[in-house]
């Protein structure tokens, strides 16, 4: 006999937002009353390049179902070049995650400026929908089958 739960899957999504563009973009989305799912938990970082690849792995290990990194558009970084480095790092990390067989749709990078409240809410809606279709993340928490 099993206890069947009828709970709807609510994904946990972590969004790293850079302080200068995307966090302000999220603010704008809020003040313009644009809806985005409450599953998105925003973590403010000084710059997108502050995000160490380990942050992303750690988020997955702690039970996140999707991780999205938002930063200023390339060329618009508050610190001039931070997001260029972030872009290279994330490309390699995502490719590695794909290589070890973790669905690559669970990670994403999006450039959102402070004026793009609409883009922020759209991106988040899309991303949450995508994670909904992928379901719960089990693989990244279990890479060495030692849980």
């Amino acid at each position, binding site marked *: 006999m099993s206890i069947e739960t009828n709970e709807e899957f609510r994904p946990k999504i972590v969004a790293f937002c850079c302080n200068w563009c995307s966090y302000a973009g999220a603010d704008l989305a809020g003040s313009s009353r644009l809806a985005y799912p409450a599953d998105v938990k925003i973590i403010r970082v000084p710059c997108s390049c502050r995000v160490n690849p*380990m942050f992303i792995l750690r988020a997955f290990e702690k039970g996140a179902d999707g991780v999205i990194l938002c930063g200023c558009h390339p060329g618009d970084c508050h610190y001039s070049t931070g997001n260029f480095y972030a872009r290279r790092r994330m490309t390699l990390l995502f490719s590695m995650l794909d290589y070890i067989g973790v669905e690559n749709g669970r990670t994403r990078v999006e450039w959102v400026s402070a004026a793009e409240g609409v883009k922020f809410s759209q991106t988040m809606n899309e991303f949450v929908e995508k994670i909904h279709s992928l379901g719960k993340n089990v693989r990244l928490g279990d890479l060495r089958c030692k849980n």
Partner: protein
Amino acid sequence: MQELINRAKELLESGEVARVLGWKAGDLPYNPEPAYFEKAEDLKDFVYNGFCGANLSKYMIEASKLEGKTMVCLKPCDTYSFNQLIKEHRVDREKAYIVGVGCKGKLDIEKAKKLGIKGIESVSGAEMTDDCDTLTFQTIYGEKSVAYADVMLERCHVCKGKEHQVYDEIIGESKDTKDAERFAEVEKIEAMSPEEKFAYFQSELSKCIRCNACRNVCPACSCRKCVFDSTKFDSAQKANVDSFEEKMFHVIRAFHVAGRCTDCGECSRVCPQGIPLHLFNRKFIKDINEFYGEYQAGEDTDSRAPLTNYTFEDVEPSIVTERG
């Protein structure tokens, strides 16, 4: 080998170098170990043969802090690591007298054991003198011969070439032993489905005992303070610090050396569990070559590493999903 010993003796006696970094015989005929020789008479223990796979570049980080010059024996592929360490200001070129030693491929005793060779008493044909065609093992069950190439280390099948990248003098002949495609294995895994990939890596990585050998041997892993060391206890380095690092160890380790890894293959060579760790490093190298242009770490000492560089037109991370 005698030429190498004579030269080392000469340098030690003239006082030009304070010590020699090479290999000495181990307790078995096939496990020579890295060693320092400070006196000319100690050199009687010096060996150099096909089993001397160890990359001595990493020892130069410590040797650079010692008084006087060190004569170091580097094989062609080791010189890439040395160059990379110069670039990162981890070794002092002035403190090293680099003798480029000849290399005709290094041997993997595990491969011989897999071929059913047991009870080895002595080995002949591993001296780097002639053509290195066959290897003869004297075992307690009799004599056994195998083709040299069949027991060569994986990294030697994708040899980077016989040219030393940095040296003061060269002793001995080298041979390019490349006979396989460098990224063939990586491509094979890339072609698998996500389930197959995951199952493959899970089965490989679950063998890991976290002995940290791959980290300790890696010339690129030269941080004084490593994220994998416990902050609380010095003695607890080998215990897993927490479950996160335990699980993600291999991905993080590979990422930390991405763009700096010369693909020297030491990680796979020393792994007591035989995990093909080079597959992680090579994936990063392949991606870097594809996305940011061909790059071989350690080829020079002044170019910028791919992860400390950028261009405005770099590919977006979404390429990973788009290329399927």
